[in-house]
């Protein structure tokens, strides 16, 4: 990328290291950190929405809706979620292809499962075979986001349902006695009050979500784990930058990255928790009141 790096074999020392760390593959590696951040940025709100919907469904007066909400939140108990990750990616992919087949080749009458193979008409492949590698990557990433959102949505459902139940009954009854409707109580009292009860659980989930991001690797996305293995592996003289097995350093780097993410999150969430506890009738709120007087 720099003129000094034109012939990597002839340079050494710090220049070599500088050139090595700015090679094209390394720039891809740095970009993959952005992929992780993007995953967090998309998944967190998406699973919050799913979780909010799930918690509302679990509290519903309508029985089938309530079963749906409760069933969704029970889904994640007792089963390792890596199972869901592996399952949803194939299931979603096949689902998309079957649905697309109904539209793009309606006349196609061959069965989808032929012995050991999964067959849709060529035009119904998602993405189509001629698509660019970027589209394949983006599609893999999209599948990963949906999978993460479904699994974490179930966790969030659990937390928010508990938080809604934890809001003191007296507050809701007071609101009702003022003549507020069901929806008004929900919007004006329950939702604003529940966050202080939900925050410990949500903070915990955020930490878990951060630590779940390397599972992107299992879903076939070229993420930081993929590049750490790729770049760290032994490079012979055939490569521009030959070096022995350096994977341990790359993984140490990833470890530090995750520890930093955890530390920063801890600090931010601590502040948020202090803000939300302010004036609340909880132990934390009481402690703040005492400290202030």
């Amino acid at each position, binding site marked *: 990328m720099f003129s000094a790096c034109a012939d990597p074999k002839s340079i050494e020392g710090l220049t070599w290291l500088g050139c090595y760390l700015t090679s094209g593959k390394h720039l891809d590696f740095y970009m993959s950190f952005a992929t992780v951040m993007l995953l967090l940025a998309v998944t967190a709100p998406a699973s919050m929405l799913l979780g909010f919907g799930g918690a509302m469904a679990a509290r519903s007066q309508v029985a089938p809706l309530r079963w749906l909400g409760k069933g969704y939140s029970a889904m994640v108990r007792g089963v390792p979620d890596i199972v869901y990750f592996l*399952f949803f990616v194939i299931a979603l992919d096949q689902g998309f292809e079957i649905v697309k087949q109904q539209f793009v080749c309606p006349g196609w009458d061959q069965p989808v499962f032929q012995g050991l193979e999964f067959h849709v008409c060529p035009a119904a492949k998602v993405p189509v075979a001629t698509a660019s590698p970027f589209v394949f990557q983006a599609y893999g990433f999209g599948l990963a986001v949906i999978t993460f959102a479904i699994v974490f949505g179930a966790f969030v459902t659990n937390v928010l349902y508990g938080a809604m139940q934890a809001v003191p009954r007296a507050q809701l009854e007071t609101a009702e006695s003022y003549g507020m409707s069901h929806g008004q109580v929900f919007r004006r009292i329950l939702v604003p009050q529940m966050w202080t009860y939900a925050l410990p659980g949500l903070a915990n989930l955020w930490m878990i979500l951060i630590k779940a991001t390397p599972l992107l690797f299992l879903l076939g996305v070229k993420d930081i784990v993929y590049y750490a293995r790729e770049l760290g592996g032994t490079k012979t003289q055939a490569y521009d930058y030959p070096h022995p097995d350096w994977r341990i350093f790359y993984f140490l780097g990833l470890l530090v990255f995750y520890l930093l993410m955890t530390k920063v999150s801890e600090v931010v969430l601590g502040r948020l928790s202090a803000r939300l506890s302010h004036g609340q009738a909880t132990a934390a709120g009481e402690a703040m009141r005492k400290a202030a007087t």
Partner: protein
Amino acid sequence: MTMTCAETFAAYALRSIGIGEKLLPKTDFTLCQQFTLIGSGLIWNVYFGFVALAFGFFLANALALAKTARSPLLRKPADWFVFVFRGSPLFIQFFLAYETLVLLPRSGINVLGMTVDTSWLTKAWAGALIVMVLNTAAYSAEIFYGALRSIPKGDLEAADAYGLTGWQRFRRIEWPTMLRLGWPGYTNEAIFLLQSSTLVYFSGFPAFQQQGDALYYANYFADKTFNPFIPYPIVAFYFICLTLAVIWLFGRVNRHLNRHLPQNMRSRIRLRPQVIR
């Protein structure tokens, strides 16, 4: 050639530890094969989970004590240990451990004229187990530390009044109370540790001669049949059974720990979903 289910069971029930049929089924997968092989893989999940818990328990106790120590020489290293193992993904810890262990010299290390063989450390049964022991120790230490800090003041004052000090006070008052208070949290830890053992064969550690855990075989079937709707629910079924077994086992211990208390003061085990680490 078709096998009856009993024959399949005989051939594959212990396949994951290298006993029985060498070759995995390649075509004509039956439901019986999937149940047997995935169940066979479960042996490894149970091994990783319970052995790691057994060793990790002692380390966790030591770490929890070190975390309450006054001297920063004891406290700081324990704090850092817990932070590193709880603050980073287990998945990355497995990778890092594997890449570190393969760097050890193949021929062994020379210690005082004796050659110590190191190649076994790169095998999953040892390498991954070490990571899991350290990981569960960190998580459990945090649980026990919290429990130590919430021992009722009255209990400690009563111990003082009886003239119990030092080791005696710890052995007879603090430790049993810590265990009792921490046990519901520890039960959850045991469940999640068992579940996270499914990560082992997806994180660098190779499955020697296709001897893997439950998820390894489920993944094998899903790859071969392009049908995720059978093998993964089988794994889920097995893990729900395993979870129920753990809850039953730990529930009995919990009852034992709470046996001296009146009914309304006993602590209950509540299953809390929080899985990946």
